[in-house]
């Protein structure tokens, strides 16, 4: 039994979990210091955040609906990172995903609900995937670094969708930069009436489990891990790494596309210019906190969702500015990105723990 526990403790997943939890605790403490230095009460502030986001039905619904889009983008970043590619283009990919889904949702009128929703989601999936595939193609064919190309492509894609929403796809007589409303048959079901929480959350969670399954059970997932950890050994083992890069980045972009599609079909019921508040970039933090583990992304996205939902009440009930929550998020990411820093910070404790034995 003791051996078993030791084995679990030695696994990488467990150690990452510990690192992430410690990072979270430290950043909450640092956050408290910052609040009190700014002249507010840290206890009151945290009470306001957690009391609402975890203590009320509406709060929980808001937390979950805030968690959904970043869960998608977090998964998109996490899966790309398994082959050591960094998808900085989730923002652009989710915009094209959203507009593709919105068009499919608005202009296809003959499909029953059970077909229409999946079809429209699939359009978003494909659009995001193809946008990412282009980036991966540039990498394997010309050696262009995906970090820069996907980052630059964001602007192109976002402005292109803006053009569509301002021009060809703008309904007649409307003055707002948005597309036609999607059909009733294409709207995602709300899990709790009168909230923003839709079945998109379930799609995101299922996606996480599918990715976990691919990584641990399939030959393709195995090849991804080998490629990401040692590309030369993967090549020597006869793995076609270019194919792995293309496929994985397509999936990554496609999941970002699903994020956009679920916003268009579930939250806004249309494509709205500028609807994403940097969900694509938030995905990078979410994935990092989860140590790029798909199941971990479910938790870290939920956590960020709680903070985000809390920040909305924070502003209403106390004088603490909303941006304070962003500060905590950034602190978490900095600490997770610097595991050595955490080890240094916690060394006195671990020495104490050992001495106590």
């Amino acid at each position, binding site marked *: 039994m003791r051996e078993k526990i030791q084995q679990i403790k030695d696994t990488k997943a467990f150690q990452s979990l510990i690192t992430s939890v410690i990072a979270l605790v430290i950043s909450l403490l640092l956050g408290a210091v910052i609040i009190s230095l700014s002249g507010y009460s840290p206890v009151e502030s945290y009470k306001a955040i957690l009391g609402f986001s975890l203590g009320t039905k509406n709060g929980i619904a808001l937390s979950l609906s805030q968690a959904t889009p970043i869960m998608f983008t977090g998964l998109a970043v996490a899966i790309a990172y398994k082959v050591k590619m960094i998808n900085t283009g989730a923002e652009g990919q989710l915009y094209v995903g959203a507009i593709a889904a919105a068009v499919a949702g608005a202009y296809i009128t003959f499909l029953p609900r059970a077909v229409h929703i999946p079809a429209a989601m699939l359009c978003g999936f494909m659009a995001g995937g193809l946008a990412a595939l282009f980036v991966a193609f540039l990498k394997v064919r010309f050696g262009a670094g995906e970090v820069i190309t996907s980052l630059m492509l964001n602007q192109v894609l976002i402005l292109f969708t803006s053009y569509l929403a301002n021009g060809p796809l703008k309904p007649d007589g409307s003055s707002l930069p948005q597309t036609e409303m999607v059909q009733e048959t294409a709207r995602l079901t709300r899990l709790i009436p009168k909230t923003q929480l839709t079945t998109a959350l379930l799609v995101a969670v299922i996606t996480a489990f599918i990715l976990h399954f691919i990584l641990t059970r399939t*030959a393709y997932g*195995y090849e991804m891990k080998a490629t990401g*950890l040692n590309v030369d*050994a993967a090549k*020597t083992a006869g793995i076609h790494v270019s194919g792995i890069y293309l496929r994985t980045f397509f999936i990554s972009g496609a999941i970002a596309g699903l994020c956009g599609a679920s916003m268009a079909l579930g939250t806004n019921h249309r494509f709205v210019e500028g609807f994403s508040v940097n969900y694509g970039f938030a995905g990078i933090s979410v994935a990092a906190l989860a140590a790029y583990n798909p199941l971990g992304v479910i938790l870290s996205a939920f956590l960020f969702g709680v903070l985000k939902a809390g920040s909305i009440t924070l502003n209403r009930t106390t004088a603490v500015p909303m941006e304070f929550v962003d500060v905590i998020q950034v602190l978490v990411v900095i600490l997770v990105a610097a595991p050595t820093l955490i080890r240094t910070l916690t060394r006195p404790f671990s020495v104490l723990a050992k001495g106590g034995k």
Partner: protein
Amino acid sequence: MTLIRMSGITKRYPGTVALDRVDFHLKEGEIVSLLGENGAGKTTLMKVLYGMTIPEEGDVFYKEEKVRMRKPTDAIEMGICMVHQHFMLVPAFTVTENIVVGSEPHKGIFLDLEQSKKEVGELIKKFGFHISPDTEVEKLSVGEQQRVEILKALYRKADVIILDEPTAVLTPTEVDELFEILRTLKKEGKSIILITHKLKETIAIADRVVILRDGKLIKDNVDPAQASVESLSEMMVGRHVDLSVRRPAKEIGEVCLHVKDLCVTEDGQDKLKQINLDVHRGEILGIAGIEGNGQTQLIEALTGLRKPQRMTLDLDGTAVSGSADVFLKRKIAHIPEDRLKLGLVKELSIRDNLILGYHREPDFCNKYSLLKRSYIRQYTKKLKERFLVKAPSVETAISSLSGGNQQKVVIARAFSRDPDALIIAHPTRGVDIGAMEYIHQQMTRLRDSGKAILLISADLDEVRVLSDRILVLYEGEIVRESMPGELNEVQLGLLMTGAKSALEKGV
């Protein structure tokens, strides 16, 4: 005078005792060779001395004064420097810049390059290093880069220099040059600790040999003049080892691997020039040569990792072409030249690594491309036991294994898939004697079961002991075919350095 004394050093890691009350001492102006198998504790002991590891028990004395080593800078301040196996140099910097970096002489806030150059130049002259202080390090050969590392230590006023496997990357001539330098250093009163696997070199250069086994000190005053390779390896392993007995092929069969007209051009240079070779079933064909004479290109061409400009390759009479996965499927197995770079994914488990490259085979993967996890677990467990891989379980990550056990994983993977032909490169590089003996046994066993083996090794002794036929590769050409025993070590060495005509005149 005793410079360093370590007494009762004990270091435990979860599950093992890396060092068990080990004593060690080093006198001024002596060369001590630290011998032991992988995992015997040599590296840990040196890490303790260098302040990279803090032991649970034991004390370190410097000039009979108790000191505490908490970090490498503590050691460096006391004049203890370590030259690592993998050099830590900035390729784009010059020799001078690499040497002074971190402790540059300066005028105010400005770097005093003139002063640096003068100091470095003096050092080079004093110790006879024969390199120019203004050359960029990337333009230097491996042996010269190593000299820069040693200069770095001397520049920091080191009295004690620890060299970790210094000859592993050197050609025979470079080894001689290195030893010349070490003797000069000794004359200047410097003390040197040499960590190595190569017993012949130990005997050639050391004043005193210290032997560790399983974390314990076995002997600390072996006189190399009285020792032989056999006696040293027996002390290291704890039983009789014999690496020099030839087990010639019993039955050499048909041609299995037939290579014709292999040409490789790289960056406009001909790396391989019309290589023709046949490997028969039941035969080990050895390729002798100094590294960089086309071995890498040969291995890559014969395993599908590189598309040569020209080549016909037949396996049992049918042509093979395509990429690496095709070659593996056609049962041409590959032991890569660098196990950690090419052969293994060190973060993954033994289990995952034992199927790498074969993971798409029907044994391990069903038609929906799902891995057959329970079969893989059973299969790899059996393999781990059969090939004597020392590790707690198949879930253990490759990175926590010793070099010898890592190599056993690579060997186990390829040998157990019933290959027809094997391309084996440097099978025992950086591997201890026990594992070396085992790997050699496995290779001859496989040969005797009728496989065709092509052995490429930088270790001339290995090529001579294992091969049933030897080809000498020099600048991309096969300069000589010989039977074992036909040429002695010196003659082979001459051929390897291109002295073909000299040899023909002499013989």
